[in-house]
């Protein structure tokens, strides 16, 4: 049974009975889509964020740093990418996190695997994809994100770019925080609740705008309209989708509702995934923040390797999945 059936019923009632739009009209389809998806995504978000906040309390970045220090190429990259999924990361801590990793002897390439995985493989995105499209797409997303994070870290590690990190980073010495007081379960739950309020309060406009765009496309653009432009036969669709995605700064929660609409209108699945990963994983604000610790050349390499990885994943899925 679909747990969201009551929402569908409510949305149907609001759209077709209360507002009185015709079931097959363009406006009816758009409004119905919007009224169903907005509450559904917000509910999913609230539930996911609650559990994510609790899971993350077991993986503070200080612990991750200890685990990764003196790790090696390959194994370290894999571990860093996996830890990147669960370690809380907000762009405001990117700088101290980077310095802390480098200071404790985490190799540069391993640090980058973490830096790539952390924003790109987002727990919220995983669950939203799972809830909206099923486990296959969610698994594809995780596997491709890990693949990009691991390989780009290995490439950056092999290139030996340590001198492209700002010199002062190597001079900072970190202290030892010692054992922090344990966070009790009531504390964890209270924190998770307030975190839900904070995040949902911040991302709901993205959700509404994202679903709004999706709803208009769903109702007004004919099915398969995008096949000609962004279907599997256009070799340029993937790189263009990535180029369009980078400057679009949005939260995962705002982009994911678009995924189904874009595929429904004929965009190839690999192209859609590449677009989504570019929006979520490559953001200009993050580049600006990282500029404090990385020289511009290294930021360019970071973005370049990432973008190439995302494009490659896009082509791969377009070739494999029809």
């Amino acid at each position, binding site marked *: 049974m679909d747990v969201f059936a009551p929402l569908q019923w409510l949305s149907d009632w609001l759209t077709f009975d209360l507002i009185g739009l015709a079931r097959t009209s363009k406006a009816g389809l758009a409004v119905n889509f919007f009224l169903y998806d907005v509450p559904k995504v917000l509910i999913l978000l609230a539930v996911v964020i609650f559990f994510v906040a609790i899971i993350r309390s077991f993986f*503070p*970045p*200080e612990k991750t*740093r200890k685990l990764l220090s003196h790790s090696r190429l390959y194994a370290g990259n894999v571990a860093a990418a996996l830890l990147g999924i669960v370690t*809380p990361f907000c762009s*405001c*801590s990117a*700088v*101290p*996190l980077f*310095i*802390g990793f480098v*200071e404790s002897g985490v190799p540069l390439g391993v640090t980058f695997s973490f830096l790539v995985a952390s924003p790109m493989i987002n727990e919220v995105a995983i669950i939203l994809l799972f809830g909206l499209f099923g486990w296959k797409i969610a698994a594809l997303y995780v596997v491709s994100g890990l693949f990009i994070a691991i390989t780009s870290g290995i490439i950056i590690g092999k290139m030996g770019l340590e001198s492209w990190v700002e010199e002062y980073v190597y001079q*900072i*010495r*970190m*202290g*030892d*925080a*010692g054992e*922090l*007081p344990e*966070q009790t379960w009531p*504390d964890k739950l*209270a*924190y998770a609740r*307030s*975190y839900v309020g904070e995040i949902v309060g911040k991302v709901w406009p993205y959700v509404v705008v994202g679903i709004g765009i999706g709803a208009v496309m769903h109702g007004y653009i004919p099915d398969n309209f995008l096949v000609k432009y962004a279907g599997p036969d256009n070799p340029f669709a993937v790189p263009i989708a990535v180029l369009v995605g980078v400057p679009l700064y949005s939260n995962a929660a705002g982009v994911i509702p678009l995924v189904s609409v874009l595929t429904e209108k004929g965009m190839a699945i690999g192209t859609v995934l590449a677009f989504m990963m570019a929006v979520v994983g490559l953001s200009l604000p993050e580049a600006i923040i990282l500029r*404090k610790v990385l020289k511009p050349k290294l930021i360019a390499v970071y973005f370049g390797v990432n973008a190439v990885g995302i494009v490659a994943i896009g082509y791969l899925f377009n070739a494999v999945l029809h």
Partner: protein
Amino acid sequence: MVIKILGSGCTNCKKLEELTRKAAEELGIDATIEKVTEVPDIMAFGIMSTPGLVVDDVVKMAGRVPSYDEVKRLIAGAA
């Protein structure tokens, strides 16, 4: 007692500072509240995630904004 709020000035750091001031006042603790905003100074305390709460040079919490009750316990326990 000296309480330090570690953080480069993001909204969460301001929130933590507010909570701490309120808590110190309610508990009647005579505390000087200082802000540590420079990254090297923050890291000297051994934390990488902000905001952080330090009471008399002991790190009590890092990387989140705790609830008001938790803040009260963290600063009261040190008195």
